[in-house]
């Protein structure tokens, strides 16, 4: 075991340091390593220092929960559960209800998923099952590059490129042909729920497709060969042999994307229109939970106002935590047993 580990120089990760053995023979470096300090006490100090770092992670989450709970208590006592079912948002008279924000967050996120899920699964299927080998790495890298672009840059691009495009071409077309569904009514401003949904979709595609790719890769190769040997076409092989086996993990990826979409702030704030209204049409401006905090937090005068905003944050926090835990569990049910692969 020891020999094999030391003699295997081409690991993908960190390399075992073989020089250490060489210098050990010379004795010089080891001597300096051994003589450094009272080792027992130093060991204990080091252990407690590392333990403190580890505990700090717990402390941070605890701190977040504590801050959110204490700072929102004022609004909680004033409005109770009704806070989430009222649509008044009136800072002047200290009347607050989060319904328009909850609605905007849910609608924009679901819209994003409706657009992003087929695209993300299509990309994942293409990369893992169809693309020639030389394209695979490049495509995976490129889609992941989408995830590295900061949210504010997506917002900037959306304001000056996506929104005018929607206003001039897409929205008039939608209104003309799909106006009867009453989802696409009203003046085409460009900004609004539709723009927010599209920009969110662009942002969650890389997350969903990278998880989908991961779980599809975890499906054993024999599964594919078995289905193909039975005379299936490639699509039938993908559907029955791969997608069906990976569906729990894919669901996990989708939910992880949902978690990202729910909490996404800047890009949405820049294009959704920021009006606390509930409208049926996707052309109408809306507001999300994250955007209202971003826009009004630093200007919130009055304790109840601030506390109401923190309560919106608390609700957002709880929902994203639940969504993320669920997603991780689903992904884990598919990828357990296969060797862990690091992903950002």
């Amino acid at each position, binding site marked *: 075991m020891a020999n094999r580990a030391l003699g295997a120089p081409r690991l993908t990760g960190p390399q075992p340091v073989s020089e250490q053995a060489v210098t050990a023979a010379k004795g010089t470096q080891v001597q300096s390593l051994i003589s450094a300090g009272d080792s027992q006490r130093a060991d204990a100090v080091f252990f407690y220092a*590392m333990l403190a770092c580890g505990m700090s992670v717990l402390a941070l989450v605890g701190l977040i929960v504590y801050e959110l709970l204490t700072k929102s208590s004022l609004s909680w006592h004033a409005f109770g559960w009704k806070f989430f079912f009222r649509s008044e948002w009136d800072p002047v008279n200290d009347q607050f209800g989060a319904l328009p924000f909850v609605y905007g967050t849910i609608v924009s996120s679901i819209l994003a998923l409706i657009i992003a899920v087929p695209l993300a699964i299509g990309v994942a299927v293409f990369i893992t099952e169809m693309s020639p080998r030389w394209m695979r790495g490049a495509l995976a890298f490129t889609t992941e590059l989408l995830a*590295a672009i900061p949210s504010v840059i997506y917002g900037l691009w959306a304001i000056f490129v996506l929104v005018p495009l929607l206003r001039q071409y897409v929205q008039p077309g939608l209104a003309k042909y799909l106006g009867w569904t009453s989802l696409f009514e009203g003046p085409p401003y460009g900004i609004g729920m539709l723009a927010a949904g599209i920009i969110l979709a662009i942002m969650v595609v890389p997350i969903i497709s990278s998880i989908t790719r991961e779980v599809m890769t975890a499906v054993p190769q024999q599964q594919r060969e078995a289905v193909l040997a039975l005379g299936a*076409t490639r699509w039938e092989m993908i559907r029955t042999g791969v997608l069906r086996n990976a569906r729990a993990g894919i669901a996990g990826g989708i939910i992880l994307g949902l978690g990202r979409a729910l909490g996404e702030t800047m890009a949405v704030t820049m294009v959704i229109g920021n009006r606390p209204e509930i409208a049926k049409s996707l052309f109408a401006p809306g507001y999300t939970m994250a955007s209202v905090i971003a826009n009004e937090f630093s200007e919130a005068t009055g304790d109840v106002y601030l506390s109401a905003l923190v309560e919106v944050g608390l609700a957002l926090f709880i929902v994203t935590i639940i969504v993320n835990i669920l997603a991780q569990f689903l992904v884990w049910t598919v990828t357990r047993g296969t060797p862990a692969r690091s992903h950002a």
Partner: protein
Amino acid sequence: MPEATTKVMLPADFADAPISVFRRSLNFLVTVAAVTAVVLVLLPLGAVFGYLIYKGMGSINWAFLTQIPKPPGEAGGGMANAIAGSVYILLIASCMGVPLGIGAGIYLSEYGRGTRFGNLIRFTADVLNGVPSIIVGIVAYGLVVLSQGHFSALAGGVALAIMMVPTITRTTEEMLLLVPQAVREAAYGLGVSRWRTTLSITLRTATSGVITGVMLAFARVAGETAPLLFTAFGNQYWNWKMNQPTAALSLQIFTYAISPFDEWHRQAWAGALILIVLIVASVGAVRLVANRGMLKGTN
């Protein structure tokens, strides 16, 4: 009889049996759909980068890089203070977040492996990773801004540090776990104490991987805007004090993008280009160095 069975099993025989037109065209349609999906996903990526370079390049000039903003509506001016402010806030964040994250990673891989407490910390780190950035901003506001009495660079740094910790913790742990147990045992066998082994042997062996993790975390927070809105807050002037509001590139891009002035829109594009170049360059440079070290096997 065995002959017949063999015949049935041979896939070559199926080749003669025609696959129905429906199944074949469905297969074709799905392939087309998958290719279309790839194109549709790559399109916005190309469009974002294309516009960044097209609009940004035209607006970057010496003044943009060296001057502070002019009053609204006036032409000229730049984002020098915002670029410096971003670097300043990121430095503050790194000073706090990197040691904490690496320490927690060391704890997880060297002491907490398989223990219930270790699993709890690992799980909590994953939870922290999923917390929306705007929430982290609220917490940093409550912790630093409220106790100091005003917006500050420190508050922004704290917010970004909180976001860096979980990423660094998990990658450090993963990288340290890749170091073979035998390497640690070799050190113990020579009488090297445990803490010395961890720092000088295990961590050093994993250096390139750990640095990559740190850079990933750095790149992730470098473009963050939401947690800075009510912590660092932004500033039209130079500021080097920890306890004063500080400009940041991402904040400046946001303010300029939603402003009504064409001149500011231009500068927002330029700022965005600088931001993305900073992110890509810092990650690329460190990756290059780390990879080279790994190839030599010296790091």
